């Protein structure tokens, strides 16, 4: 009796209301996306909206069960769940049904389950248990190793399943790790690397290398104290590069300017280190490491992008960055999706009034591209309302996480925040051309039992943890 009271009394009802609102809105948008004159009963179970209703009822039942289970179960069995999730991933990889080229589905009779969806909450539980231990030092190498293993193991198996998009979700957990102790400079460095990644794809290698060299010199001029030496170093490197270039040209060798710049930059590195060693200037070490790391990162991204990345991924990124436009080919999904959303205007075409989604111009419109229906039929107002609900939900979850007394619950809460944030931002981002199409669902909205149930479990475990803090 006591248990029951604490369960229902401590529930964060605003979160639950937002959850219910999103699930309901998702359902009517799936109805609109699939709607046709032949099948217009909203309870038609041959249609996706009929099935989604079944998934929703199951999801509510799941939520209830989660709320009724003792909260200690999630802490005690965290690694067990994690192990179970990994096993199911491996099972899907080995025996799974192939959908869209990915070995990611386990078939139970007529119901298909996508284990990758459920691995998310299990991974966060495991992380929460690891990090939530009293006096856990996140910056110790052994801690970082354990964290990396927990995060990368499922991601690695999912990549093996050929579902890179779902694997990228785990990258979002960097937010959680930042909250739990990763330093600011590390985040800034990550941001820098992201920008560098984009630049490497857009610009030429020679340009990137020169930019990196300039940034290094600039950093030294700003933070270092031996400006004169830095300038001498910079000028001599440049002169050496030019001399090398003209000598080779004069001798008739045709060598890419990238190699000449790279060689000139690297030949100065040992000299710089030797100088730093003699004068005991640690700052130069850091800068040299910075230069070497970013340079090799750029070159490997360049190599990986052009030589290793599958052509369809490459085309999607090219399309997004505006390098190559191909609205009928690789850019088709995004272009049609943008047309659908853009044609919605300020207040939309009204419920069931969308022509782009109704006439099937947008692919995957009830799953990954469900936001198109929102944009087309409900316009800017509808899109803003949906996004605002997600934003309020995420910010509220941050607030809830921060008020936890146990770090286990807090870490888990930030995990939920990270995953939800990544899914919403990337999913909506890809429908409006801000992010490459990587095929991940919009939480609570997209059609499909696995995704709905997994997000329900993810959220309600945290609601349960919060309710009895």
């Amino acid at each position: 009796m006591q248990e029951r009271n604490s369960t229902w009394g401590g529930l964060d009802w605003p979160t639950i209301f937002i959850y219910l609102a999103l699930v309901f809105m998702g359902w009517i948008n799936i109805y609109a996306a699939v709607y046709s004159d032949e099948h217009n009963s909203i309870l038609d179970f041959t249609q996706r909206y009929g099935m989604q209703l079944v998934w929703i009822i199951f999801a509510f039942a799941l939520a209830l069960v989660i709320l009724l289970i003792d909260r200690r179960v999630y802490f005690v069995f965290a690694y067990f769940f994690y192990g179970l999730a990994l096993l199911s991933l491996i099972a899907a990889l080995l025996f799974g049904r192939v959908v869209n080229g990915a070995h990611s589905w386990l078939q139970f009779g007529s119901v298909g389950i996508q284990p990758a969806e459920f691995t998310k909450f299990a991974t966060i539980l495991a992380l929460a248990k690891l990090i939530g231990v009293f006096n856990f030092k996140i910056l110790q190498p052994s801690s970082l190793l354990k964290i990396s293993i927990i995060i990368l193991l499922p991601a690695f198996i999912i990549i093996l399943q050929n579902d890179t998009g779902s694997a990228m979700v785990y990258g979002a957990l960097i937010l959680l790790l930042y909250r739990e102790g990763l330093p600011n400079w590390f985040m800034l460095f990550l941001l820098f690397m992201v920008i560098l990644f984009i630049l490497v794809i857009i610009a030429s290698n020679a340009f990137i290398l020169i930019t990196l060299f300039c940034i290094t010199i600039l950093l030294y001029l700003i933070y270092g104290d031996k400006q004169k030496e830095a300038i001498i170093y910079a000028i001599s490197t440049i002169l050496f590069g030019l001399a090398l270039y003209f000598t080779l040209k004069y001798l008739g060798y045709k060598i890419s300017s990238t190699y000449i710049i790279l060689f000139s930059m690297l030949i100065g590195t040992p000299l710089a280190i030797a100088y730093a060693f003699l004068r005991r200037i640690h700052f130069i070490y850091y800068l040299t490491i910075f230069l070497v790391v970013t340079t090799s990162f750029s070159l490997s991204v360049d190599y990986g992008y052009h030589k290793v990345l599958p052509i369809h991924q490459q085309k999607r990124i090219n399309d997004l960055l505006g390098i190559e436009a191909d609205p009928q080919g690789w850019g088709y999904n995004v272009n049609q999706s943008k047309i659908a959303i853009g044609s919605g205007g300020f207040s939309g075409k009204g419920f069931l009034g969308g022509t782009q989604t109704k006439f099937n111009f947008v692919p995957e419109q009830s799953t990954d591209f469900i936001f198109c229906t929102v944009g087309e039929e409900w316009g800017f107002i509808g899109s803003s309302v949906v996004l605002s609900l997600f934003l309020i939900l995420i910010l509220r979850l941050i607030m809830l996480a921060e008020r936890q007394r146990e770090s286990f619950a807090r870490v888990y809460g930030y995990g939920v925040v990270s995953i939800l944030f990544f899914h919403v931002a990337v999913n909506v981002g890809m429908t409006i051309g801000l992010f490459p199409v990587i095929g991940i669902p919009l939480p609570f909205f997209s059609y499909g039992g696995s995704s709905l149930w997994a997000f329900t479990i993810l959220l309600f475990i945290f609601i349960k943890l919060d309710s009895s803090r």
Partner: protein
Amino acid sequence: MQLNITTDKKYIISSIILIVFIVILIKLFLLQIVEQSYKLSASNNVFRYIPQYPARGLVYDRNGDLIVCNQAAYDLMVIKNEVKAFDTVEFASILGISKEQVKASFIQIKRMKGYSPYKPSVFLKQISTKTYAILQEKLYKYPGFDVHPRTLRTYPYKMASHLFGYVGEVDSSIIAKNPYYQLGDYIGVNGLEKSYEKELRGKKGVKIFMVDVHNRIKGSYENGLYDTAAVVGKDIVCTIDAKLQSYGENLMVNKIGSIVAIEPKTGEVLAMISSPIYDPELLVGRNRKNNVKILQSDTLKPIFNRSLMAPYPPGSTFKIVNGLIGLQEGTVYPTTRYGCAGGFPIGRGVGCHIHPSPLAFTQAIQMSCNTYFCYVFRGIIDKPMLGSAEAGFSIWKKHVESFGFGNRLNIDLPNEQRGTVPSVSFYDRYFRKGGWNSLTIISLSIGQGELGATPLQIANLSSIIANRGYYYSPHVVKEIKEFDGIDPKYTTKYTTTIDSTWFDYVVEGMDMAVNGGAGGTALNAALPNIRICGKTGTAQNPHGADHSVFIAFAPKDDPKIAIAVYIENAGFGGTWASPIASLMIEKYLADSISRPDLEKYIQDAVLLDRHAGKK
């Protein structure tokens, strides 16, 4: 301290999330409110514009007879996904094609650009009305098939194929150049159909339907409120006299060459025959491409419009031009006499036939004396006050060009050739500068050498003489219905550089050539009631027997028709070309033939073997 840093991070994380959401909202704002092009793209996605084809304008002759009109034809369309199993043998027999062709068509449509199994594709083009009548009753047995009505040309008189040209389907290069055209549209490919394409084609209409992503039609848009009807093409009255045209084609049976007849006072082309002719119906409908290939491989080149495209040497008809220039330049007088002892004796020399000697100007025209015109030509080129052959030649060339030689006459038909009039620089290159004089180029005096003129240009010469010194650009369209007038360039008078008084001497000579008794070169062209003036020519042909040429106009004092006749490899102009011209003139002016024997003699003549045999 620890606590402080972590609470800071809470705000940093919240801010990151907030910023990302704001970026997404800004992008949505741009997409949904600022940017308008997506709304347009959306309507292009959903609407399917089905063109409505107008009927092409009709063509009447100068007397109001319909000579080019339309027949209904039907494109058999198929929507692949709606096709159910059917009896291919019966289907093929209805369409009059083989069972294999049915299968081949199914394979072929899949290769077509823009193919969709949900969208109608052309299964068989241009089914005849007869086949359609049979098919229509059985169409219910073949779900997925449907017919789209189209119009094709048909020719009640089956004549003037070269003049009217033909209609074909647009290809991708035309579509790229002109956005009006879309795949499946028809366009005038040659002749009048091409030059008056804009007037004849009318304006396509459009019906708007809503479709889904598979192009399945979901219904008419707003009940057809925004549909537009097709506007029928404008009818054209052409200058051709259908009776004269078909008479000429009849006379030219088994002969190669061209007849062009012009009304001198207006420049209207009364008849334009290029022989051999071909049946215009061959270039209508499904078999067009195939028939074009067959016609193109024929050694007699029936598809080649000789009237506009064959630059023959003008031969003796050109003596008139040289004579007129001489008179104008004062290097010869009507009374000037030259003796002729079988040829022009200076330089390499030019031979002449037997005739009385010496001759004055008009007689020289009448008897077509080579020697006389060699002297005339020398006189022009070597005119003492000019000082050089180049200067004399330039003056000569300027006069020649004022007759429309060496340039297009700008007839309203495509592919007109310019012909050739040599230039000083040509001779400077051919010989060397200063290395030539009037004797080197003496063959120009009798219309040979480096001269080339199309039958149209020669007919225009005849027209100029009939008008005593001016012409209107020859043209084939008299009137475009519901349209004010014709192109002003056809009502612009072009005057030659020769004073009109000099023409009387030429006309006199031409009159005598036909009606002057002994010594006349074209006595067989004379008619009792109609005064015909004419000039024969024999165009030397390096490839075989000489071409027979004749120009004429009639009546002498109020010319109604000017004509040029070219018969390839038929020898002397007085043998074949002049009687044909005479019959044509009689047909046009008297509408009946007083010399049925001559007519039959001409009709029965076969002058093809000389061509094949070569000299």
